[in-house]
């Protein structure tokens, strides 16, 4: 296959970027999208030019490090697929492909197609965990967990933290990401003690990072390589609402008011 690529090049965080056009020749349909970019980069290096920087690591769709807007779609046109698992057989000979970084105010571009997604880590740091130290855990079978609950928790926990939901959203909202962690932990008995603080802290950090609000367009679910359901956003909203009441009650009792 022979393709024409329009690729976003940007020297660093502060520089202005621009689109540049490259030819990708002799591409095999068995290559992954990133292997196609490897070929282009090898050609660039051989002519003394700097390769296109893009994030990637496991190349098997689980680490969440790869990104890319491919023809305007986060992770490209294939449903439920991360860019590293997208194969060139999904394209046609002669295609023109536009490749850009994930765009969001909370994801500044570091170079070319590489963005800083540290905001997603900071959301988890704010409360996306069960607050237990190592040691002293009860036996794993001490608390039976209904299989359906555990399966629901696992559906949410499958999030790979790539940020495609943000890139796909017109508001650059990370609500699907937040809801996946809240949905994972709230569906397990271990997540109960902190459920109210967790949802409030995570949402507050989300807003603080400059992500937008959710307006129920469901683009996030369509772009998600792990098909995390927007149902978890609904659950997040219920949790958030519930936590407001919970907090109000506790504050009242502690201050002796009401």
């Amino acid at each position, binding site marked *: 296959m022979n393709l024409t690529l329009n690729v976003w090049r940007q020297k660093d965080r502060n520089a202005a970027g621009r689109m540049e056009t490259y030819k990708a020749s002799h591409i095999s349909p068995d290559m992954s999208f990133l292997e196609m970019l490897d070929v282009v980069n090898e050609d660039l290096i051989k002519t003394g030019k700097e390769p296109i920087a893009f994030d990637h690591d496991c190349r098997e769709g689980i680490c969440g490090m790869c990104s890319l807007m491919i023809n305007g779609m986060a992770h490209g046109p294939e449903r439920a697929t991360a860019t590293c698992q997208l194969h060139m057989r999904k394209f046609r000979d002669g295609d023109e492909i536009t490749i850009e970084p994930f765009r969001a105010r909370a994801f500044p571009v570091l170079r070319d197609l590489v963005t800083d997604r540290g905001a997603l880590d900071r959301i988890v740091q704010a409360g996306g965990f*069960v607050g237990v130290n190592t040691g002293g855990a009860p036996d794993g079978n001490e608390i039976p967990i209904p299989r359906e609950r555990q399966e629901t928790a696992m559906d949410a926990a499958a999030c790979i933290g790539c940020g495609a939901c943000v890139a796909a959203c017109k508001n650059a909202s990370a609500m699907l990401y937040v809801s996946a962690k809240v949905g994972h932990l709230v569906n397990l008995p271990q997540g109960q003690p902190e459920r109210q603080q967790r949802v409030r802290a995570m949402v507050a950090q989300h807003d603080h990072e400059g992500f937008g609000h959710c307006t129920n367009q469901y683009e996030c679910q369509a772009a998600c390589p792990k098909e995390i359901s927007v149902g978890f956003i609904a659950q997040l909203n219920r949790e958030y609402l519930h936590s407001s009441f919970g907090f109000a009650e506790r504050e009242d009792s502690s201050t002796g008011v009401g």
Partner: protein
Amino acid sequence: MPLESNIPPGPVAEKWTRYRSECKLVNPANKRKFKVLVVGTGLAGGAAAATLAELGYQVEAFCYQDSPRRAHSIAAQGGINAAKNYQNDGDSVYRLFYDTIKGGDFRARESNVHRLAETSVQIIDQCVAQGVPFAREYGGLLANRSFGGAQVSRTFYCRGQTGQQLMLGAYQALCRQVGYGKVKVRSRCEMVDLIVVDGRARGIVVRDLVNGKIESHTGDAVLLCTGGYSNAFFLSTNAAGCNVTATYRAHKRGAYFANPCYTQIHPTCIPVSGDHQSKLTLMSESLRNDGRIWVPKKAGETRRSADIPESERDYYLERKYPSYGNLAPRDIASRAAKEVCDEGRGVGSGGRGVYLDFAEAIKRDSRSRIQDKYGNLFDMYENITGENGYEQPMRIYPAPHYTMGGLWVDYNLMSNVPGLFVLGEANFSDHGANRLGASALMQGLADGYFIIPYTLANYFASTKQDRISTDHAECKRLEQETDAQVKKLLSIKGKKTAVEYHREVGRLLWDNCGMARSKESLETAISKIHGLRSEFWENVNVPGTALDLNVGLERAWRVADFMEFGELMARDALARDESCGGHFRVEHQYPDGEAKRDDERFMHVAAWEYQGTKDPVRHIEPLEYEKVKPSVRSYK
């Protein structure tokens, strides 16, 4: 320097309990005075960083990825072993210990392995408490499956994403400490040197991968948790960024590298499809629980799988190993696949593949049942190959996966350089010459959550050292050295790319130091890699500048280390003139093709000392078996 393993006295089963009662402790109020540098944030590093911070130490953690959640532990699919005996099928700590020792072909330290088996039980409890969504039965209790090489069901799992869920458990624990200000995480930051002052590891030199700055970080101990070196083969199941740089550069500063020739070739990977390929994808070995492995009986078979009648198929694992069948350990299954392909009976393009057939399981259990168990793996297979595994057999072939070798450590997980600790896959570990399925996650978490907190406290409590600032002369010297190396790489401006050199050294290692090795092939590898190394430093082309996000530069220095290390791997394989586990020397086999150990001459760990331009020196640590009697490892 003699290799002192510091194994505590007493019967094997009581050593760890005794150690924990007798080791020295650091007063809670004093812990905050110690600073620990943790390199790598996978299961071992993430668990260690979180746990040490919980205890009160100051922790700084480093990873080359953009987030500490992405380390390659995340890709482990199958599961994690623990001697819980929830299934009432006869499991025990002793059995897990015994299976691991035997699986490692009697080349692991008994005391470490027993400790690992004991600790396995706590890991599951800890992970459940963190909210790891392990698979459960309808009654709500934890589910188990049996996994390669085990006769009991002791493997805990989260669908096909066990590594991911355990990784996220450790990541969340780490994030919690970051939020509390107890851990500083430096992502997109790569360790490029080890700072040794007065014979002790006191810090690391790193390169910030975003702005290219070289900086020193100092502390009271350094923990390397940087994974394995399978990417030396170019094509492996490891992530693209996995590298040997941290451990190899520590080796160059005096840490001994143990058993580098012990590499695990995993039997169930998707076969290579062409030269463009950048990595190989593993499919969980759990597939072997229901899939049957076969090749045509006739060499040069051209019919489609469906047209080959039952009587003309060779289910070679079931035939050769009736009691373990398709679940034979990894090294054995891989070698058997190579053997049938060498006989011309391989399937798929290039003849390097064997069938993994689910037809019978689908008939027995229904397609939806199989889909429940392995759906994501079938999808992944179809995505990569364009073939449907429910309708036709999958094709698989072995690929480099895990490395049992690593930096030498004593019972405390400390290398021969005091203050340098090595955890998880990066150490030479508890797996001997071959690792059993679902044991890597167990070891990474055991080291990080439950072993290092004790052994590190013992080290701090028995060591007196002054604070060292990053202005120390040794820091400055190493920073300059690194800087010079970066400048050198950028100035060569030769004709070949780093990737081309990587592909070449990988091919040399795979052909000559892969699944079957001989004196001849290893000597070839050593001399050719040596030549390739000198050529690299004259002819590599690395564009761009030093103070920049420069992906070409990152790759080039990793490849430079892989080449030097590849030579060491071949040297070790040459010196180990026996077959054991994943190390198969064609000169040493039984008439039926099984690996033939030489306990008389090689029942020891080989640890290599770096000597600069001279040949490295091989030291040995004899292995003593007091609980298990070494025998011929048979799975028939």
